[in-house]
């Protein structure tokens, strides 16, 4: 069963929100309803599920309802209708005490502009969640310090928030959210206020942390690249509706409608498409037992000026070029050992095109894609990199 299950969720702002439902059923748009009733549709029939340990990203432009959606999940905003089940328990129906308990133990939130308490030190900020639960001071300091260490802020625990840079302030925000060890982490545009370099660093670190913690994360962003990078699955929102849910590849290769298509057309594919997706089968490989003549014949067959060499277990040994092979034949050498170039450019299947670019620029040979045991899985030539970026099949 999914950890979080959202069913038919609506949020309507303004007076008498219920009177809007018949209009929604008639299929009136957000703008029409606003003009007619003065009510704003925040969320229009959202349903989705999030698995335990999943990194779920909700992406949309401003006004798409994504911030409203995330605030419904811990009821900072009261939903108008629908169900939000966490561990099977409906948050929408929880009474005041119950809701407070859920907020204290199960769900923590990280905010776009950090939402730190300016009058408290870093440590006191991180301790806040535990403090209001009445955890005894020694214990909460211990837990808070662990959390501070986790986000790399050790040594800053006695600083005031305004003495820290934006990136560091958001680390405090993250540490504060992690301190009470919640099941669910809500992150509302958590990195949007940071400059691009710091943002990238924080994204990498969050992924790193997530690979250790396996929290269930719901992450809001307006930045498609960020969504594609972080999300196990992505929900795309528009006008309060969820228009598509899927993995990064799903959304890129199979957009649900024109809106999503338009949205993804400017995507920096070099950051999404992986080596695996653009590599060719390494047909040109020969075994180490073969000699230079076999190598040249293989190259001619495949119209390449070089050929990769593997052992019988397909483990990569190196590469042989056509010039070296010809010279070896002239010299009468029978083995490839002397002309084998062992230092070849290698990539892993999961590496993104962007990482391959510098390699492709300097390498004289195609890039070898290998797994952890150095088995040759495929090769990438410059042309396939370009095709991969443009988004056409190689």
């Amino acid at each position: 069963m999914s950890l979080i299950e959202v069913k038919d969720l609506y949020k309507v702002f303004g007076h008498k929100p219920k009177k809007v439902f018949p209009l929604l059923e008639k299929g009136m748009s957000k703008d029409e309803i606003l003009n007619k009733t003065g009510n704003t549709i925040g969320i229009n029939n959202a349903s989705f599920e999030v698995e335990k340990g999943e990194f779920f990203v909700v992406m949309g432009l401003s006004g798409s309802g994504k911030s409203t959606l995330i605030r419904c999940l811990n009821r900072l905003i009261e939903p108008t209708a629908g169900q939000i089940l966490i561990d099977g328990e409906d948050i929408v129906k929880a009474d005041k005490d119950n809701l407070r308990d859920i907020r204290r133990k199960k769900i923590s939130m990280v905010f776009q502009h950090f939402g730190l308490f300016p009058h408290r030190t870093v440590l006191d900020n991180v301790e806040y969640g535990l403090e209001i639960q009445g955890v005894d001071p020694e214990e909460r300091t211990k837990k808070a310090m662990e959390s501070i260490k986790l986000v790399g802020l050790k040594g800053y625990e006695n600083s005031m928030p305004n003495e820290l840079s934006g990136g560091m302030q958001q680390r405090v925000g993250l540490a504060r959210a992690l301190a009470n060890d919640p099941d669910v982490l809500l992150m509302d545009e958590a990195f949007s206020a940071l400059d691009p370099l710091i943002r990238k660093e924080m994204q990498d670190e969050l992924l790193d942390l997530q690979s250790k913690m396996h929290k269930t994360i719901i992450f809001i962003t307006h930045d498609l690249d960020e969504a594609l990078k972080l999300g196990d699955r992505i929900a795309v929102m528009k006008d309060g509706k969820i228009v598509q849910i899927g993995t990064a590849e799903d959304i890129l290769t199979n957009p649900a409608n024109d809106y999503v298509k338009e949205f993804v057309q400017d995507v920096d594919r070099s950051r999404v498409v992986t080596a695996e997706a653009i590599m060719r089968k390494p047909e040109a490989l020969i075994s180490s037992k073969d000699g230079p003549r076999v190598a040249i014949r293989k190259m001619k067959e495949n119209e390449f000026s070089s050929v990769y060499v593997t052992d019988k277990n397909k483990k990569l040994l190196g590469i042989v070029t056509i010039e070296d092979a010809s010279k070896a034949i002239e010299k009468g050498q029978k083995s490839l050992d002397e002309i084998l170039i062992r230092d070849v450019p290698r990539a892993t299947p999961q590496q993104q095109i962007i990482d391959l670019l510098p390699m492709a620029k300097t390498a004289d040979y195609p890039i070898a894609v290998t797994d952890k045991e150095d088995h040759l899985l495929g090769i990438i030539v410059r042309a396939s990199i370009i095709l991969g970026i443009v988004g056409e099949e190689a």
Partner: protein
Amino acid sequence: MFKFHIGSYFEDFVLWLKDNFDFIFDFIKNILEGSIDGLEALLNFLPSIVLILLIGLLAWKVTSKGVAIFTILGLLLIDAMELWQATISTLALVLSSSLITLLIGIPLGILASKNDRFDRILRPILDFMQTMPAFVYLIPAVLFFSLGKVPGAFATIIFSMPPVVRLTNLAIRQVPTEVVEAARSFGSTSKQMLFKVQLPIALPTILAGINQTIMLALSMVVISAMIGSGGLGKVVLRGIQEYKIGLGFEGGVAVVILAMILDRITQGFGDLNKNK
């Protein structure tokens, strides 16, 4: 031309209050009188020079050496002008009415910040309290409490309450939304929210309101002397009535010195808090 005097209705209302709720006014009177006289006796307990040095020390702690020197010299001048008793009496009146103002005003401000409807109701009342010429309060005040310090304190409390209510309200409303959301999202109770988050962040602005309240209270001193509240106001009033230019000037200067000292010290508390 159509004539309609609302004054007579107000007069009836005040007289009705006086007739029916005299016990309440007596009760208020006892409290006010007790606190003012108590504070005055306390301040008079120490010889003037000791109190001057103590106030100077306080000024030095919360502000700067310059302000401390000014405080000591200013108070010495007041003592030398033989206005010490009058100054203490004024100080006691100002401090105790301010204290009561804050005890009522800050909770009202907090309430107004939490409840929009209450805020809307309160706003015109505050406008009324603040802009009605202060003399007007004196008439019913005397009716309720007869002459002396108590009606003076009563008028002062009404006149000086608006700034602290408004600024407390504003200060709490100005706490950034995300900070409040963060506190809520971690499961704060409303009490924890108020005392651990909103009030500490709002404190500098609230302190500015407290400062304004004390200044306004001091400005009522001369006016309330007209109904016998004594102190420095009485000195100024005598200067006017007996046409003694020198005496009036001395009384006025003493008020200014007291005002500046109170202002710098209360502001100093605000800055201390900001720098922390």
